[in-house]
Each structure stands twice: as C-alpha cells, then as structure tokens.
C-alpha cells in the first residue's frame, strides 16, 4: 500500500524516485487564472509587481481547482530585468498581456562580453519573487509543492539581445555566443540559489529558445547543453528542464542535462520519448494548454489526460503556462480525471 499524505508528498516522492499512487497533475510554469484574479479583484498587470498579489494569485489555482502546485512568477522577464533590461507590463491595458522586454542591454555584437552585475540576486524583482515564494509556502506549502522557474541561458540571451542576431551568431560565431551563455549560466545559478534560499521545492529551467523548431539538435548539443549542465549541477532542489516545440530528436540530450525531470509540450510524441529514455526517466508533459484546456470541450480535456498517462508521462503537466482564460469546468474536469487514477 502506497501512502501519500499530500499533493506535495506525491510530487516530492516522484522527484525522489519513490513509488507513488498516480501521476500528479501540476506545472513548473505560470499558473495564474482569470477566475482566480476575479476572485481576488486583481488586475493582471499588477500581480507581477507585488509579492502578496503574486503569491495570492498563484494560490487560487490550487484553491479553486485543486491544481497540485503553486508557482511564481508568471512572466519571463525577471532575470533580464535584473540584468538591466527595461520591461513593459502593459499597465494601461485591461487585456491579459504578459510583460515583455522594452529595452535590451546588448545592441551590437561588440557588447556581448557582459559582466554579471554584482549582487544580481538583489536586483530587479528577484527579492519580490523570493518574498512571493515565502508567502506562497506559508499559505499552501503544506499541501502542495511550491515551484518557480528561471530561463535557460540561451532563452535569456534572446531576452537581452536581438533574437535575430543571437540566432545568426550561434552559427557564425559560436565561441562568442558560448562565452555569453557561460556568463548567463552564472547569472541563472545566482538567481536559482536565491529562490532555493526562499524555500522553493523545485525549479524549472525554461530553455524554449533552443527548441528544434528553431535550432538544430547538433547546435543544441554543442552550444547549449554544456551550459544547461553547468546550471543543473548547481541546483540542489529537484529540477526540471522544459523545452517546447519539436523535441523528439533532443530528448536524449535533455535527459543528459542533469535535470531531475524533463518537460515537453504537445508537439512531443511522448510514447516515443518514453521508449527512447526508458521507464525510469521522469518525463513531464505534454498537455496542450490552449487547444485542449482552453478551447476544448470537457470530454476532450478528459481524453487528453488519459492520452498523456497512456503515452507514459510521469506527471500530467501543461506544455506551457496555463492560459488565464481557462474555463473553470475544463480545469475541474482535468483534475477530476487525474484523480481517478489514484490507487
């Protein structure tokens, strides 16, 4: 008889390689919902700038729907901002628009030899995210695991310089790009270390910029993987490597990165990945967060849970951030369906 005392217990056991009763349904990426914001009366643009609002918003996804985690932050600009970029939170709009980088710090190839600012972990919103982690832990941390994420070095490089240039240079001048990724890996390690101190249970490294929709598996292996390895070596809590898009050709490299689990989206054929990586590998995914969870009918929502489990995921996990306008009945249907697997 497997004894699971909480959703947190289940996830931590999964990361630890222990037997569990069923796959958890959780995420390592943004998980705020419009329903949760309505309940709290918060505007989307405001929850990125206030630790209390950030933590409260994240907690509603567990409280309203039983999603088996709490994750902060919600946007992808935290590290870039700490490095000196300016961000836009679209405060003037009522619509749900995620913050983007307004001003980058590298404008030409010559500016690529950057130094990581001292005290990076105290700059920008990193202290705010740490505070949100502490608040979230206090609120729901006994019941569900609390996670956070950082960007992978290549994706982060695409935030602080023109992606166009970065992509071409990764081909023309890989040494130069490599040096930048090495420096950014140090930055990511600093930030992740700070989140660990705040008490986070697991950290996802999002390296979606290096998907095989964009970069060849050869470039991924030669140019990106070494710096991901460097990062995972330094993360002491359970870690996940997330890459979206076409990933079937690179899952063996992802598994080599040193992450405790890999995360893929709906474009990955998980049955095939499972065959490639074997039954011990932790594969999280590959639930389609928009076409199914937002736009699908509840029957499709349930079928997709089944498909993920049958294909062999270790956790049913959305392939990207939860899209905030997810219909409550769909979210509930997803959670109901996974709970049926409990033994």
């Amino acid at each position, binding site marked *: 008889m497997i004894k699971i005392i909480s959703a947190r217990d289940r996830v931590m056991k999964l990361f630890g390689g222990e037997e569990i009763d069923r796959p958890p349904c959780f995420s390592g990426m943004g998980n705020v919902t419009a329903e949760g914001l309505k309940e709290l009366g918060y505007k989307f643009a405001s929850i990125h700038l206030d630790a209390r609002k950030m933590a409260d918003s994240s907690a509603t996804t567990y409280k309203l729907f039983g999603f088996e985690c709490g994750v902060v932050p919600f946007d992808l600009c935290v590290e870039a901002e700490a490095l000196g970029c300016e961000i836009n939170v*679209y405060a003037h709009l009522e619509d749900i628009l995620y913050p983007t980088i307004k001003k980058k710090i590298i404008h030409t190839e010559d500016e690529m030899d950057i130094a990581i600012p001292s005290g990076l972990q105290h700059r920008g919103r990193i202290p705010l995210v740490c505070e949100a982690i502490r608040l979230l832990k206090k609120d729901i941390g006994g019941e569900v695991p609390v996670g956070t994420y950082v960007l992978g070095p290549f994706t982060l490089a695409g935030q602080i310089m023109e992606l166009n240039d970065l*992509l071409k240079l990764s*081909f023309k001048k890989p040494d130069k790009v490599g040096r930048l990724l090495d420096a950014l890996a140090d930055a990511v390690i600093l930030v992740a270390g700070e989140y660990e101190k705040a008490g986070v249970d697991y950290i996802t490294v999002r390296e979606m910029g290096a998907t095989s929709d964009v970069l060849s598996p050869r470039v991924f292996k030669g140019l990106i993987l070494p710096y991901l390895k460097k990062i995972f070596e330094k993360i002491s809590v359970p870690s996940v490597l997330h890459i979206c898009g076409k990933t079937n050709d690179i899952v063996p490299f992802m598994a080599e990165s040193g992450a405790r689990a890999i995360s893929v989206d709906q474009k990955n054929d998980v049955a095939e990945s499972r065959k490639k990586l074997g039954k011990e590998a932790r594969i999280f995914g590959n639930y389609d*967060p928009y076409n199914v969870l937002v736009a699908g009918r509840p029957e499709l929502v349930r079928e997709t849970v089944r498909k993920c489990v049958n294909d062999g995921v270790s956790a049913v996990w959305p392939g990207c951030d939860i*899209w905030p*306008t997810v219909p409550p009945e769909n979210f509930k249907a997803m959670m109901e369906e996974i709970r049926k697997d409990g033994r």
Partner: protein
Amino acid sequence: MVTEDKKKELLERLKNAVIQYDEDTAKEAAKEVLDVGMNANDAIFNGLVSGMEEVGRLFEAQEYFVPELLMCADALYAGLDILKPHVQQLDLGVKGSVVIGTVEGDVHDIGKNIVKMMFDVAGFTVYDLGRDVPLDKFVEEQLKTDSDLVCLSAMMTTTMVGMKKVIDDLRAKNPNVKIMIGGAPVSQDIAEKWGADGYAKDANNALKDAINMISSLKKLKEEAEARKSR
C-alpha cells in the same frame, strides 16, 4: 546581348548564394546581372527566389533551421536591394498591398519578417508595423493605406488571442479586407474559428495564399465595377 550560357551561370550563382547564405556573392552576381544587361525580374525570380525555394525545402527536411534561414534571407536581400530599382514590372499576375505586424504583447518578429520578405520579392507594397503592435493600429493602418491584405503574426499562445480582436475590428470596419494569420501556435482550425481568410503555415504558403486571396478580391471588385457601369 547576354548569352544564354552567361545568363544560366548568373542565375545559378544567385541561387547558390542564397542557399549558401553568401551575401557577397549575391551582391556580386546581382551587379553583374545589371552590367551585362540581363533582365532584373528574371534574376530575382529564377535566381534569388528559386534559391529561397530550395532553402524552404531544406528547412522542411530539417537540414536547415532558423539561423540558416535568417542568413539565407540576408543573402536574398543583399541581391534584391541591388536588383529591385531596375525592375520595370514584376509579373506575378497580381500586385497588392499588405499591412503586416506582430500583435501587441509579442516581441517575436522572425516569422513575420520571413513572410514580409516573400511579399517584398513578389513586388507587394508592404506596410510593416513591426512587433508588439497595439491592436487598433492594424485597423487604422489598413484604412489609411486601403491595403488588400492584413497579416497578423503571434509567436506565443499568450498573445495569439489578441488576433481575434483585430479580426473582428477589421471586419466591422471593412468587410472586404482579406486577413491572414500565422505563427507557431496558430492552426487552420483557429483561423477558421476566428474568421481569418488564410492561415500561413510558413512563408511559402503565406505568399501563395496571399496571391490567391488578392486575385479573388480583385475579381470581386472588377465584377462589382462592371455591374455598376452597366
């Protein structure tokens, strides 16, 4: 008069310059095209564009990825910039104007730029609004320029939904305008559901679709005018 052999050689050089992302060769070959008095239109379509078609195939076969594609595009533009001023009349059977941009909240413009390049080579007048474009701006620009086509791009699921609003607004203001959407999260299904006329799976597909749309639009206009004059 330029010999057939010379012509063939130059077309081959232009084509290979694009495939091998060699900007210098593209420039040199384009200059030589002008020097020897070869037809610039021919050089664009049977040289540069046919190179890009091969690049498209290599991309589909996953031999080329986005960095290669971007470098090939640079080579194409290097040649195109030299040849374009000497083009008398691009002959694709249809010419049109297009408003293009990446929707607000999205700062990814690589896909949009590749599609834009196809319109550029086809001789369309392109009004490029750039990226992170406020939704109202699309409608405003279409009305101002009376463009035949509006192309919306979104790279992220999180911004894709903004396209629906633009489509609705455009339809309300100008029911005849043709709308095409594209980007990683977009699908044929979404295009149909939201009432877009076309869905650009990739740049090649975007151009073919755009030409079809504009042809049908022009035909409608001609029919309407013919009825009026009767």
